[in-house]
């Protein structure tokens, strides 16, 4: 029976795995520890940006303007300086990320119903952070201008409200908590890192220790070897998924409005894919070290960049194509969608189908490259 041979190999792999309890323990503990550490500590919220002020006006008006920055949670005032070159030095040494320069005519212009100009310098060496700083400057500025406008209108009598107002509502993550974004991303991250690294050692280890010859001379075919080796590790990574999923819901209390079945199906298919990628690399390499590094740099790192874990994938056609070619992208859609947007089982069928097709393709490649080596 074909199934018997697969099961025999799977049983042997399982036994081998159980004999190294440290390794097996780490395979569960490390993902969980990573989730706890990063889930609590990795906040993508940028708050308390260091701001230095050069106040050349030193009037109640300028102080009020500075206060608008200080009282928002976005900024933290680190210094009130006298000259602009001094402020530049603070940006250069990284002690301030934003510098505000308030000109001497600030109060005179505002009290005379004119426009005042404030100089804002932002450190652009970390571009995302620079853009966030720019956005915050705009947010605080818009709020301050609205106050000015309201005071002006009430002095003029009649109208009190701003002439054009927006009503903002936030969907999917109404409280704007980063954990609702980070924790589901961590689920994908863990399943893209660990399974392929675990399986990348499987074939090459036998080659290094010479036991692969036993496999070659056994009646087990290529498919038996691949399936038998993959099976226990798919189990390990699915257990990893269950652990992390449970921790997301009950430790981090992340909002989840989708279907557990869809996410689980996605996790299973994704694990099969990534275990397969590890097996392909394992079949192609000669040393465990090479297998590990190739998996790390060739499979894990690109998945990190092109699945949009933390930053969106670039919009150029090549990056978009790469992102469509890796399974992590499809699984990411499933996870993020089910955690935050819901939207029914049917909506995710194309993603699950893509993962299934991917799995078939990966194991076909593994089947082909394994033959070369045996031949």
């Amino acid at each position, binding site marked *: 029976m074909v199934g018997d041979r697969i099961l025999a190999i799977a049983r042997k792999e399982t036994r081998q795995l159980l004999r190294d309890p440290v390794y097996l323990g780490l395979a569960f503990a490390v993902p969980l520890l990573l989730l706890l550490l990063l889930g609590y500590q990795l*906040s993508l*919220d940028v708050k308390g940006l260091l701001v230095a002020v050069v106040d050349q006006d030193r009037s109640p008006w300028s102080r009020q303007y500075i206060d608008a920055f200080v009282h928002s949670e976005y900024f933290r005032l680190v210094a009130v300086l006298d000259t602009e070159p001094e402020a530049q030095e603070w940006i250069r040494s990284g002690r301030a990320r934003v510098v505000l320069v308030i000109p001497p005519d600030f109060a005179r212009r505002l009290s005379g119903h004119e426009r005042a100009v404030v100089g804002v310098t932002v450190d652009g060496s970390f571009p995302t952070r620079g*853009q966030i700083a720019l956005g915050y400057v705009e947010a605080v500025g818009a709020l301050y201008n609205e106050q000015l406008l309201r005071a002006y209108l009430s002095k003029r009598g009649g109208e009190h409200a701003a002439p054009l107002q927006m009503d903002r509502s936030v969907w999917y993550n109404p409280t704007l908590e980063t954990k609702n974004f980070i924790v589901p991303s961590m689920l994908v991250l863990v399943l893209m890192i660990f399974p392929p690294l675990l399986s990348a050692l499987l074939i090459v280890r036998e080659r290094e220790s010479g036991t692969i010859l036993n496999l070659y001379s056994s009646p087990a075919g290529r498919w038996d070897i691949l399936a038998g080796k993959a099976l226990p590790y798919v189990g390990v990574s699915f257990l990893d998924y269950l652990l992390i999923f449970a921790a997301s819901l009950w430790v981090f209390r992340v909002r989840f409005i989708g279907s557990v079945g869809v996410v689980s199906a996605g996790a299973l298919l994704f694990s099969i894919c990534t275990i397969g990628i590890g097996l392909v690399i394992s079949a192609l390499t000669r040393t465990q*070290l090479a297998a590990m590094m190739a998996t790390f740099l060739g499979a894990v790192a690109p998945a990190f960049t092109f699945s949009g874990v933390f930053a969106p994938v670039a919009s150029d056609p090549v990056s978009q194509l790469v992102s469509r070619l890796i399974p992590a992208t499809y699984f990411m859609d499933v996870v993020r969608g089910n955690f935050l947007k819901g939207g029914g089982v049917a909506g995710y069928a194309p993603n699950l189908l893509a993962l299934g097709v991917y799995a078939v393709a990966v194991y076909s490649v593994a089947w082909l490259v394994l033959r070369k080596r045996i031949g």
Partner: protein
Amino acid sequence: MASRLVAMTRKEFSQLFRDVPILLILLWAFTGAVYTGGHGISSELHEYPLVVLDLSRGPASRELVSRFRAPYFKIVEYAASDAELVGLLDAGRASVAIVIPPEFERRVGEHAARFQVIVDGTRSTSATIAGAHIARIASELGVELLERPRRDRAATVPQVDARVRVEYNANLVETWFAGLLEVLNQVTMVSMLVATAAMVREREYGTVEHLLVSPLRPAELFAAKVIPVITLVPLAALASVFGIVHAAFGTPIRGSVWLFYGVTVVYVFAMASLGLAIAVVTRNLGQAMMLLLLILYPMLLLSGAFTPPESTGAFMRYASVLSPVSHYVDFGYQVLFKGNGLAYVWRDVAGILVLGVALFGVSVRRFSRLVG
């Protein structure tokens, strides 16, 4: 002593140079990986995809819509109905929607117009920033609408205009940052991986017993393991900074190359020592790999490249003092990108040096005890 060290080092070098797959992987790490990594991510806050549902279709609503433009917004669709708009948001094709009500035109005339904004909150920071841009657009247009009928008179509304200038990267080009980060991260990963593997291999093959009965002292053995990494990785990093980050991405390199090279040597020493420490406490490559991931990923993700140190909790701020990666990332951007000299980065350099020596010392001691 010197001859023992030389002999062992020569063995490590020839072992590394004979391992063609590893050399190819190293080559990829500092070329292809840097190139794709630098290109792959985009800024979250650029060309935010916007869908418009304009029920007013008057000159005022058209003017409002025209204010949503590059670089912050990109209109992906003019929706015809609520359902279409919701569909685009659900599918993630649009991240923000504006809905302009039918009475908008009339209300603008009365100086009391409102419109609705829906933001996808999934990426909370982007959602906040997009909200800020829209608030500015609304406030500016509102003031203009007030001033417009009285343009002949001098009276204007008191407002503050912010003139923004961005230092070091005027257009906030993401590849300048991402390419450099990729090089720094490759230095981190490769130094640790190669050193760990060089030691674990001896244990797995059992050749560590040969080394133990040889006259080689643990410190000499570890030095021999570290020297090839220190020799190759900093040179590869330098080549990558100039050959790819500068040549292909056009990132300006403003600082001292020698300072970067010198500190990278010290940093590679520190990370390789950390790799050796991992190898000493584990039994096989599988275990070493798991421990490596547990240490490596938090250090990479909390290095300060994604979140500024001042925004993280107190625990992380203190922990990052103990992470060579945080020091190195700060050092790398300050020197190469801002053109700062030793006077600005000496703290980082001292941190890397102290951590490196400590890690080396600890792993040698652990190993000696294992032997003794």
